[in-house]
């Protein structure tokens, strides 16, 4: 039972991060590789702002004794300008692979600095000590804490989903998708490409950091081995499976990928006494899932249909120049409906 509680809690937390990625990649179309760095900053900042001063030989910055909720808010607020700087540099002129390379660089450097510069977050050994935040003031017993945390994460996820859904069909939601699908055309219609993209980038990073602050409460401790730059791929797999751009689809995708993969690899034996076997198989499956989804169903299981006029939706499968997977009104039957293989969607 407690096993399922913790799996569901993690799935809720990862859903929030995946929704952050969905704003940046699903809506704005920017292939960001630095996102997991904002998650990590959220986790680290929450821990250093709640657990008090560092005790030698451990060292880290801040070392405050703030209440958890305040630390959560502050952590997110600190991450926003960092993401704004990265976004402002990376989004000004760079697109596609050049944007991806730059963000890969950002997270690689952040990763190295956090590992090597110990006064920041205690280097490779990481930091620990956030135990059951909010349990004291709310009088929650230790045995009930797991349920409380699950409820907390689920509520936050629900709020995020509701807000994002409203945003998704708002003028901004439509504008950012139109920029994704055709930057020049959107600019010609008076959209500020740079500002819209930067807004999406900062919003996505904020959601990632928010997920990180909840992750901190769940984990209690954090070190660099928990956030290698490749961790972001699990989130990409989740967004891809769920349906890029579709808020509820992404949440479903995260639950499918996360719970499916944990369960699939849970009973794997340790072949040859290799403790890395289970986790490695999981990573191989995630990598494989990304490749297979991109190849055969890039629009995901629940394709996003927002931002496409009703008239266009009816002309299923006639011309394939636009993005987004809107052609598939009946997602899994789309191929048959248009009389053959589903056309490959152009996503860029």
């Amino acid at each position: 039972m407690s096993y399922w509680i913790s799996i569901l809690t993690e799935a809720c937390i990862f859903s929030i991060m995946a929704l952050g990625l969905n704003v940046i990649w699903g809506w704005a179309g920017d292939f960001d590789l630095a996102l997991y760095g904002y998650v990590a900053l959220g986790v680290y900042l929450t821990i250093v702002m709640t657990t008090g001063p560092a005790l030698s030989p451990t060292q880290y910055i801040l070392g405050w004794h703030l209440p958890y909720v305040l630390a959560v808010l502050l952590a997110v607020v600190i991450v926003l300008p960092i993401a704004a700087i990265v976004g402002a540099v990376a989004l000004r002129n760079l697109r596609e692979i050049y944007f991806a390379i730059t963000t890969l660089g950002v997270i690689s450097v952040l990763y190295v600095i956090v590992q090597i510069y110990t006064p920041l977050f205690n280097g490779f050994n990481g930091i620990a000590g956030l135990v059951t935040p909010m349990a004291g003031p709310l009088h929650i017993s230790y045995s009930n804490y797991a349920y409380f945390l699950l409820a907390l994460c689920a509520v936050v996820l629900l709020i995020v989903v509701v807000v994002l859904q409203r945003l998704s069909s708002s003028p901004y939601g439509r504008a950012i998708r139109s920029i994704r699908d055709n930057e020049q055309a959107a600019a010609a219609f008076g959209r500020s490409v740079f500002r819209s993209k930067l807004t999406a980038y900062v919003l996505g990073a904020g959601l990632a950091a928010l997920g990180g602050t909840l992750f901190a409460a769940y984990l209690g401790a954090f070190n660099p081995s928990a956030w290698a730059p490749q961790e972001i791929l699990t989130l990409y797999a989740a967004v891809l499976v769920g349906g890029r751009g579709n808020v509820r689809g992404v949440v479903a995708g995260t639950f499918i990928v996360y719970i499916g993969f944990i369960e699939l690899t849970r009973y794997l034996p340790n072949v040859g006494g290799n403790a890395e076997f289970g986790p490695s198989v999981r990573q191989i499956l995630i990598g494989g899932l990304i490749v297979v989804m991109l190849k055969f169903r890039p629009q995901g299981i629940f394709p996003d249909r927002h931002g496409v006029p009703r008239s266009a939706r009816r002309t299923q499968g006639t011309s394939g120049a636009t993005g987004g997977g809107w052609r598939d009104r009946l997602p899994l039957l789309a191929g048959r409906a248009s009389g053959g293989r589903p056309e490959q969607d152009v996503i860029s």
Partner: protein
Amino acid sequence: MHQFLLYVGFGIVTAAVLSLSAVALTLEFAVSRVANLAHGELLTIGAYAAYEFLQWTNSVALAALGAALVGGIAGIAMNLGLIERFAGRPPIITLIATLGLSLMLQNILIIIFGAANLGYSINQGSPHHIGPFLLTDAEILVTLSALAVASALYLLLQRTKFGKALRAVSDNRELARVSGIPAQHVVTATWGIAGVIAGFAGFVLAETIGTFDPSLGFSYLLITLAAAVAGGLGRPYGTLVGALLVGLVLELAGAYSNSSYQLAFALGVLVLLLLFRPNGLLVSGRTVTRS
């Protein structure tokens, strides 16, 4: 000044290793128009192949040859198994797929070889004074082999029919095809060549660093990208210049600060280049970069 020149010497060695990796990456880009994020794994595969060959034959030359051979096979397999299957799709989609492949390959290597560090037991030889530089036998050999690869590549590209075909395919694959060039074969062969160079680069890289593990190539990817972008992605000669620049920056920055921050300097160079010279140092003009 003396000290400075010493570091320049080390920088040249770093640049030599880097040039191998970056030239391979740029060749892949030239024919397939995709920045291959699984490029690092070609190096890692080469490093492990060399390790196996060294255990087996105890000969450094055969280890290098084995690394190149296995790297070449891996390069062709990567192209046929993944890149070609995404032909005609937006480059960014292929890019994500290569990152997924990178994750798969790294973990397959972990399962086969374990995550622990390995090292070759190769005699480095004693350091020699060459002009102002102080280099070991191994380092001299590394630098010479990189020069040899660069020269061979130059001859291949400029003096052979294949080189002409490669340049034509790189310029416009469709046009090359309708002109009667077997574009598909040229692309496959180019990936084979890139794999050979990358596999050898992996061996040389692991040998220069001393130890390696399955993340060897991925950790080196960013520096490789910096060098390739500095030279202009898809431009082999520019990439050699880019490798020299990034190699020198890395060694000098490492020498006059904490060497652990080399990667940060690589990023600094990369971002500046992307912002001001996105098409490479040798091409003038500042354009919005799209792929």
